[in-house]
């Protein structure tokens, strides 16, 4: 994992070069602590979570590296170690810890990681929002109506058992589609990472990049709709 970290490293260097230690005003060379006065530094709001953990902007990440870095930084920022320090340092320790926890939770989960990456890239890719899935909406509304009908029915009636059987089939089908969507997402993750690794700046690479992000956006939002209806199904017919 060398070539593809290049961009992220450049960005980080730029960010660090511009900043000054809040305490001794010397130029910051260290990562989160001033090299000169050893004071803790606030994590910049512009720093994305990947950079924060020293990870490339990829969707397959080494969770061991992520975890190790999380523990390392958790110790470094932990408020317990700042109880006897100045107000500034205490508040930086709190802010950094909170940010670190959110960053870790986001990157740890593959879906949240992808959502976050999309947010980061959305600015770079115009029109990342695609048209709403009209067919899926229709399907969901219809299913919800059947669910309502079932909820209001006399559970011991024949009508209710017919409805229950139908809802069971719907549930199986939807869960099948969920698995299919996850598989397609996985494929997109692999394609995204391969593209990042190649690091090309050609027109073709840019087009592919946009396509991948759009497809990811589509599947991720459809996945949320399907997940909701499956949850409702499970809760009602369980």
């Amino acid at each position, binding site marked *: 994992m060398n070539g593809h970290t290049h961009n992220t490293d450049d960005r980080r260097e730029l960010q660090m070069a511009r900043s000054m230690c809040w305490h001794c005003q010397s130029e910051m060379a260290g990562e989160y602590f001033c090299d000169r006065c050893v004071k803790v530094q606030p994590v910049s709001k512009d720093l994305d979570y990947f950079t924060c953990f020293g990870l490339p902007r990829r969707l397959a990440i080494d969770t061991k590296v992520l975890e190790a870095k999380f523990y390392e930084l958790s110790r470094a920022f932990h408020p317990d170690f700042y109880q006897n320090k100045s107000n500034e340092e205490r508040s930086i320790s709190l802010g950094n810890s909170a940010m670190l926890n959110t960053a870790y939770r986001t990157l740890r989960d593959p879906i949240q990681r992808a959502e976050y990456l999309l947010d980061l890239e959305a600015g770079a890719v115009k029109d990342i929002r695609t048209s709403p899935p009209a067919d899926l909406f229709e399907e969901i509304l219809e299913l919800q109506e059947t669910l309502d009908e079932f909820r209001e029915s006399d559970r011991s009636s024949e009508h209710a058992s017919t409805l229950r059987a139908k809802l069971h089939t719907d549930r199986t089908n939807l869960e099948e589609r969920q698995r299919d969507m996850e598989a397609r997402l996985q494929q997109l993750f692999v394609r995204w990472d391969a593209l990042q690794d190649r690091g090309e700046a050609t027109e073709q690479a840019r087009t592919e990049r946009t396509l991948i992000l759009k497809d990811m956006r589509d599947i991720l939002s459809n996945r949320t*709709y399907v997940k909701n209806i499956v949850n409702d199904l499970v809760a009602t017919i369980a």
Partner: protein
Amino acid sequence: MAYSEKVVDHFNNPRNMGSFKKEEDGVGTGIVGAPECGDVMKLQIKVQNDTIVDAKFKTFGCGSAIASSSLATEWLKGKTVEEAGKIKNTDIVQELNLPPVKIHCSVLAEDAIKAALADYQKKTDSK
């Protein structure tokens, strides 16, 4: 975080819940969704002589989304098509006192109104 009184009221006593037949004359249907939370909202208007005489909604989502669409149908009734197009999500936010994390629910309601109006327009134009 607690819901405002108005949200709770609309949630417990939703106004105008239900639906019209899509094919019916003068009916415009808007179905929209919020990809962030997976909420789906259907909002319909019934137009006679350029005035919205009735409106109905069906929303599957959180309390704020239900309240936003319930309020929207209340506001829509009696408005002309042109006036209806001017309803803004910020009006809904203000009326229901929605917190920042629930603003997308009001956006969803505005989108639903726009979609229903567009559908009505399309139906009228194609005649």
